[in-house]
């Protein structure tokens, strides 16, 4: 039952907020100043009527979307190529395994130094960070293709391109989408982090810098609240897309989510 699940989720969130509210109002000593959830939510609602904040959200989301799209455009073909050619994969694997664990946030200062156009700098770090989950999942997907299906097609005289188009790509597609979903979350982290470190003319992170300098912890948290909501919505939409596009895949792998 979906409605029962949603109900339980809402109860969990409400419980968390109430505990937070009570702890901050009565549990903390008067000396520690921290905005309670009720104030943060109130300010968060107020931000919906703040044109500066909204244009900032638009800037952050534009960078996010461009970065995510570019990383898909790069990582999916690359993953398919590496996944199809075992020798090339073996040759590039050490480099990939070296680059992948570098915390993407750590390359932001380098990007600030090297890329003079602000939006380009931000999109670049997003691309760098979200490349990996898409690439690695595409690779997994390509490895996971049923060898029997490939063999069957080959024995019927289909060429390599046809095997790729009719078997490998459809079979790997659900993995790719999962990679995109993971990348979407990482891309949002990078979009906001780049703004926090580099500033800019607008954005969720830029708004947070402003709020911090003005001693407005409530506004910092309210902006963070919306960043969280955006991440959650993006994730839910992609989960929905996975379910609708690839329900056959879930049936095959026995996934129940």
């Amino acid at each position, binding site marked *: 039952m979906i409605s029962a699940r949603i109900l339980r989720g809402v109860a969990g969130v409400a419980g968390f907020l109430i505990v937070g509210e009570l702890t901050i109002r009565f549990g903390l000593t008067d000396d520690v*100043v921290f905005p309670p959830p009720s104030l943060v939510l109130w300010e968060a609602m107020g931000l919906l009527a703040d044109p500066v904040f909204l244009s900032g959200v638009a800037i952050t989301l534009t960078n996010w979307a461009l970065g995510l799209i*570019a990383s898909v455009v790069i990582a999916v073909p690359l993953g398919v190529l590496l996944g199809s050619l075992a020798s090339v994969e073996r040759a590039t694997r050490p480099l990939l395994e070296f680059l992948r664990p570098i915390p993407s946030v750590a390359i932001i*200062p380098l990007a600030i*130094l090297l890329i003079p156009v602000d*939006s380009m700098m931000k999109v670049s770090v997003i691309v760098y960070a979200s490349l990996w989950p898409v690439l690695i999942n595409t690779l997994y997907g390509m490895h996971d293709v049923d060898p029997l299906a490939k063999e069957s097609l080959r024995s019927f005289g289909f060429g390599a391109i046809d095997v790729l188009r009719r078997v490998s790509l459809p079979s790997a597609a659900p993995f790719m989408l999962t990679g995109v979903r993971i990348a979407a979350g990482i891309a949002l982290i990078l979009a906001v982090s780049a703004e926090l470190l580099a500033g800019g*003319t607008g954005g969720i992170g830029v708004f947070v810098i*402003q709020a911090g300098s*003005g*001693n407005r912890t409530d506004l910092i948290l309210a902006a963070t609240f919306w960043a969280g909501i955006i991440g959650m919505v993006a994730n839910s939409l992609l989960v929905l897309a996975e379910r609708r596009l690839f329900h056959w895949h879930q049936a095959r792998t026995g996934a129940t989510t």
Partner: protein
Amino acid sequence: MTRTVRARALVLGIAAALTLAACGGSDTASAPSGGKGLEKTTIKVGALPIPDPAALYIANAKGFFKAEGLTVEPVLIQGGAAALPQIKNGALDISHTNYVSTFLAASKGEKIKVVGDVYQAAPNTFNLMVTKDSPLNSVADLKGKTVLVNTLKNIGTLTVEATLKVAGLTKDDVKFVEKPFPDMANALSTGQGDAAWMTEPFITATQSQSGFRKLADTMSGQTADLPIAAWMATDEWVQKNPKTLAAFQRAIAKAQQLVANDRKEVEAVLGQYTKIDAKTASVITLGTFPTSLNATRLQRVADLMLEYKYIESPLDVKTILVGASG
């Protein structure tokens, strides 16, 4: 078949989006236009969301830049030191910075120039604060204690060191810990530090909300009226854009004159680029807004940095000022 058509449309769309994004970056490098012969008519100027650079926003709002044929796009920066790579690679043309960061960079051989004075300390604009029931009552009590500053090895630690000296202490008698301004109050209340070097609006907020006390004004005696903030640009930019710089300096000087004479001008513009509300703006202590770039006054900062070993050899500030007097 519809599936491949759709896929192709998607690919085309993505390609178009990327092309547009690539083109979007080049619109700022506009060619000289207008009768003033400016090398550059649109410039990006970095500024922190604090009271110091009020003149930038006033000059924009009152059309002083426009009158010079200049379009100024303010960009919020994260800090003076963080803006340095941005002026070096051209992401910013001019940026707000603090003197200590700038002189540190200059002494390390960075080719940068100070092109305008922005902000100067006044009494009670940078205080060492303690909680209301803190056992500390004088600077001498800080021996062996932890002092919170927003950035290590910068203006905070420098002026605290000068304050310690008066009480017969040195930097080795305290422990400096880095903490962002918004987190300092709670850090003091929870015992993560014993005193914090704060500025406005945090001084006023912690005094009124939590009853914090001032232990010392770090801008007194040797550091009284210490120059704080400046406009900086790279040597290269200054050489390539002399007319643009002169136009910027003329326009910002007009605005600086206004804020120097009337704090209401500052209060009115704060809401535009900071999150300091009108009520807070009317009660916080402001520094002063110098209307000239004075070498003698700024040399004090470099000499102070030499005395406390922030720089290793004397720095003649005249060599890095553009458009200075005195």
